């Protein structure tokens, strides 16, 4: 085996091996250090010997022994640590536990990283670092901060887990629904940053979108039959399936109405459509992610922009507004209404939202207004709105799109 292949195995197994190790050794940092030790041993051994049947169990086993060594090596040998070593040794058989137990470990890790005692940014950072197995440098890049600053943030978070007593567990029945919503929000945050970056030279950051989809699939497997998870996964798959059509080779944005639909990933769309149906057929209250996915499904099914089922899309946004009212969804609703009742009616809706102050500082608001004004032929007003839209974004491809629109109106 070459080091590249071994790296891939580490990448696939790191999160799950870590999840079990944290339970066994009871400490994030010790588990992470011990797993690094085990990787080093594996890198040496697997290049010359054959891969073990179950690489994850092998890694967990070696890491557990490394954790015991690490505790023993600590200079002050106190009674408490003696007890810990004893417990670890008692757990020696623990690696042959049933798969359900190991799945629970992964969920424990996910719910701990997405604990509401952390700010959303910290939840995302912990998730990317420990569950997705990204390096600290990669996580730092995702947040556009220095590696040092991110390392510090992660150290503080892990310290808080230990000192504040954040439990390593899957929440019990009563607490589960709101906590799962929190987990899904983290996954969706990772995805949206990948789908439309906040700033920088590239519209999309495919690595983050792919990580979010991987997390969604993992959750769907660990907690089957949940409409919220299926809906979110479907939403991400359907949006992401359009990635090849959303930008040209120069990195410029290609709008939905201009996209070459043959570039869309049909297999992924089929996958997404199946999941939307599953999500909508699950008993219980309709889930916001599932309704959003149903909207994405209508776009994915439409043979062209003109033949899109706009009335149904506008109707689904109204459903969404009842489940989960928010000014951003109102704005999306207005955009859909512009395709059914025309831009004048939509502009009234947008101005009403603006008057309530609900979208102060929302960077896409001037862009939506600009588009409606342009379609109404109010060139001067549209131009002013595009200037405001350009000021509101940090993303280069969006700025180029607005510049193009202004040129087209000349």
């Amino acid at each position, binding site marked *: 085996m070459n080091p590249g292949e071994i790296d891939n195995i580490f990448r696939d197994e790191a999160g799950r091996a870590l999840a079990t190790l944290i339970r066994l050794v009871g400490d994030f940092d010790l588990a992470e250090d011990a797993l690094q030790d085990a990787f080093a041993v594996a890198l040496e051994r697997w290049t010359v010997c054959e891969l073990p049947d179950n690489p994850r169990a092998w890694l967990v086993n070696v890491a557990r022994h490394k954790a015991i060594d690490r505790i023993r090596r600590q200079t002050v040998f106190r009674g408490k640590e003696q007890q810990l070593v004893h417990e670890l040794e008692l757990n020696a058989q623990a690696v042959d536990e049933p798969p359900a137990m190991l799945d629970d470990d992964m969920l424990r890790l996910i719910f701990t990283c997405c604990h*509401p*005692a952390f700010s959303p940014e910290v939840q995302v950072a912990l998730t990317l670092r420990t569950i997705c197995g990204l390096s600290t440098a990669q996580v730092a890049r995702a947040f556009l901060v220095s590696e040092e600053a991110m390392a510090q943030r992660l150290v503080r978070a892990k*310290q808080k887990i230990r000192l*504040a007593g954040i*439990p390593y567990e899957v929440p019990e029945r009563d607490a589960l629904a709101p906590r799962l919503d929190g987990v899904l929000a983290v996954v969706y945050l990772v995805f949206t940053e990948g789908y439309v970056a906040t700033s920088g030279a590239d519209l999309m950051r495919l690595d983050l979108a792919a990580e979010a989809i991987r997390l969604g699939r993992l959750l769907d497997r660990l907690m089957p039959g949940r409409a919220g998870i299926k809906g979110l996964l479907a939403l991400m798959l359907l949006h992401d399936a359009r990635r090849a059509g959303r930008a040209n080779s120069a990195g410029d944005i290609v709008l939905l109405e201009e996209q070459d639909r043959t570039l869309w990933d049909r297999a992924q769309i089929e996958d997404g459509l199946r999941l939307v149906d599953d999500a909508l057929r699950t008993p219980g209250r309709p889930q916001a992610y599932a309704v959003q996915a149903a909207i994405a499904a209508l776009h994915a099914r439409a043979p062209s922009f003109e033949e899109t089922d706009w009335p149904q899309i506008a109707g689904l946004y109204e459903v969404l507004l009842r489940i989960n009212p928010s000014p951003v969804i109102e704005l999306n609703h207005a955009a859909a209404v512009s395709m059914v009742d025309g831009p004048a009616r939509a502009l009234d809706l947008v101005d009403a939202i603006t008057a309530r102050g609900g979208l102060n500082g929302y960077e896409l608001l001037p862009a939506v207004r600009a588009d409606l004004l342009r379609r109404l032929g109010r060139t001067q007003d549209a131009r002013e709105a595009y200037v405001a839209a350009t000021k509101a974004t940090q993303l280069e491809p969006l700025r180029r799109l607005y510049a193009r629109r202004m040129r087209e109106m000349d």
Partner: protein
Amino acid sequence: MQYLLMIYQNEVEYAKNDAATSQKMLAEYQAFTQGIVQSGNFKAGDRLQPTTTATTVRVRDGKTLTTDGPFAETREQLGGYYLVEAKDLNAAIEIAARIPSARIGSIEVRPIWVYDK
């Protein structure tokens, strides 16, 4: 009468102290604590973990909202405290959310510093 004595200091600066300075401070605290225990003034007292371990709990419309970090609002003032035993942070947050003032103000949940024996 009973009084709550609240200790405010710059925790970042304090953490920069060398071992000898910290040791000296600790000894002074031990002496002070023993002194007020012997004089009969002592009711309860603890050192707190740093604010980076804090979680602030509010209840609005029946929903428990948590935020990372300490309470940082100058419009509201410390009005009381509970020292509770709870099995983990989730249990502590659950108790904090039942404090009536959680509905109008904020409850900061901060772990007590436990010294190794």
